[in-house]
């Protein structure tokens, strides 16, 4: 893909994510998170390599030497600044549900599971939530199951938590003190009204709502060059669909 090709939504999202990671020393990217991975790798490029990015899912791309526990130990030690979480449902208070719809355990719909959320949400200072489907089905008043709570009562050890939520319509920031979201920007081609109509919970508004910036030419070149090449090693299907590239090594050579 050349730098002339029109900017894709995924690139706008990744650019917005990179903007939330300025100054981070170490960012990890969890499972099934190709756009967050793209955003984190972009942050790394923009930092001149100072931001370390560890992408889960492929052992040889990880710096660990102590097994799966090392990601969590690193976070527990306060050495991990950024992480990403999603949710089948996300609610007004940033509670996330990765387990299923309906009463536990008799779900109408069962999702994969809570993964590291029940821990990392508490200890990583900059957790970025992402959920591309922005509807009243996904962004709800109250989740059916709390995989991890958005806020904690006073006295609970909680150095970490959500700082933002990005969707296919907009970017929210999370106000820790108020325990609720505030709209930060609306993506190009979408409107505040559309955001309101499709959000199942109430949120705060700034005085004026800006548009989410489109990445400049240099940023696009970085995304489509070194970032795309690296993301293809972990997310071959995504890289093929979005950047039209194949990983250097065929992923299906068994």
């Amino acid at each position, binding site marked *: 893909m050349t730098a002339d090709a029109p900017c894709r939504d995924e690139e706008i999202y990744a650019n917005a994510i990179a903007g939330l990671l300025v100054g981070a020393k170490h960012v990890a990217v969890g*499972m*099934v998170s*190709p756009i967050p991975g793209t955003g984190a790798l972009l942050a790394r490029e923009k930092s001149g390599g100072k931001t370390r990015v560890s992408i*889960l*899912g*492929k*052992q*040889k791309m*990880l710096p*660990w*030497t*102590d*097994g*799966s*526990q090392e990601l*969590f130990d690193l976070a*527990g030690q306060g050495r991990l600044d950024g992480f990403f979480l999603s949710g089948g449902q996300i609610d007004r208070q940033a509670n996330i549900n*990765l*387990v*299923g719809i309906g009463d*536990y*355990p*008799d*779900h*109408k*719909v*069962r*999702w*994969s*599971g*809570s*993964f*590291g*959320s*029940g*821990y*990392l*949400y*508490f*200890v990583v200072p900059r957790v970025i939530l992402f959920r591309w489907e922005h509807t009243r089905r996904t962004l709800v008043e109250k989740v059916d*199951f*709390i*995989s*991890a*709570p958005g806020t*904690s*009562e006073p*006295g*609970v*050890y909680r150095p970490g938590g959500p700082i933002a939520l990005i969707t296919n319509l907009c970017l929210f920031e999370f106000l820790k003190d108020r325990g609720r979201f505030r709209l930060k920007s609306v993506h190009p081609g979408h409107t505040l009204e559309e955001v309101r109509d499709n959000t199942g919970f109430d949120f705060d508004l700034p005085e004026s709502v800006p548009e989410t910036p489109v990445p400049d030419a240099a940023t696009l070149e970085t995304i489509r060059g070194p970032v795309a090449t690296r993301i293809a090693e972990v*997310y*071959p*299907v*995504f890289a093929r669909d979005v950047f039209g590239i194949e990983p250097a*090594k*065929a*992923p*299906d*050579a*068994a």
Partner: protein
Amino acid sequence: MTDLFQSDLSALARQIPPGASVAINKGEGPDVPMALAKEIVRQGIRGLKLITIPASALPVSGMMVDMLIGAGCVKSIETSGVSMSELGAAPRFTKAVKDGALQVLDATCPAVLAALHAGAKGQPFASLRGIVGSDLEKHRDDFKLIDNPFEPGDPVVVLKAINPDVAIFHARYADRDGNVWIGRHRDQLFMAHASKKVLVTVEEVVDRNFYDDEAMVTGMIPSFYIDAICEAPGGALPMGLDGNANIKAVLAYMAAARTDEGFQAWLDENVLAGAKAAAE
């Protein structure tokens, strides 16, 4: 040569009693014990309580767990997640939960690891930050919220140690004395330390002793943790030795496993065919 070696997978699988709790690792590397899992299906071992260390959410590990569930081998699963990663949901797992045919003990990754680690040390429980106020805590008898004994007013979750009956995994090498080389896949080491029985398939048995080479010892499980080993080249397929999954094979499984009939046909062709042919 040690007497740990078994000549075929069936001898290995026979050491897994019905109803056993079985630890399975994450599958980030070429360590998914797929060949052994297929043998478990062929032998019809049932009632297994799977424990995923800490999740089975990569294409091949997800597929293996999904297959065991679909084949009716699994009674319950303690896990932080089951899926095929970016390829999609695990079809048989999803259906079994919906049908109420599978008990899920929902966890979060570091909780499984911390509880396994306590088990590996022979200790009763581990403390873990986080979890407080989640629904995970509410639904697990083996997660308890206590007051930090060193700081009153500081609520902390403690997790009961996990000691699986059996751990199974695939590894690159065993030496002639039964030491198993895992490189930096330390999860298998913790699984081996914590489990009552450890059954391993290896890509290759090499005619040397790893203790003679400090570089190999560093990434090794000593033989005294291992109960049986079977040489099974390609034992992690469709996970390749280079750590890349054969995505086409996983997608073909997923397509078939969408329906009961499709899954049964896939099993017949890919798992049971050999056994049937041998029995005829």
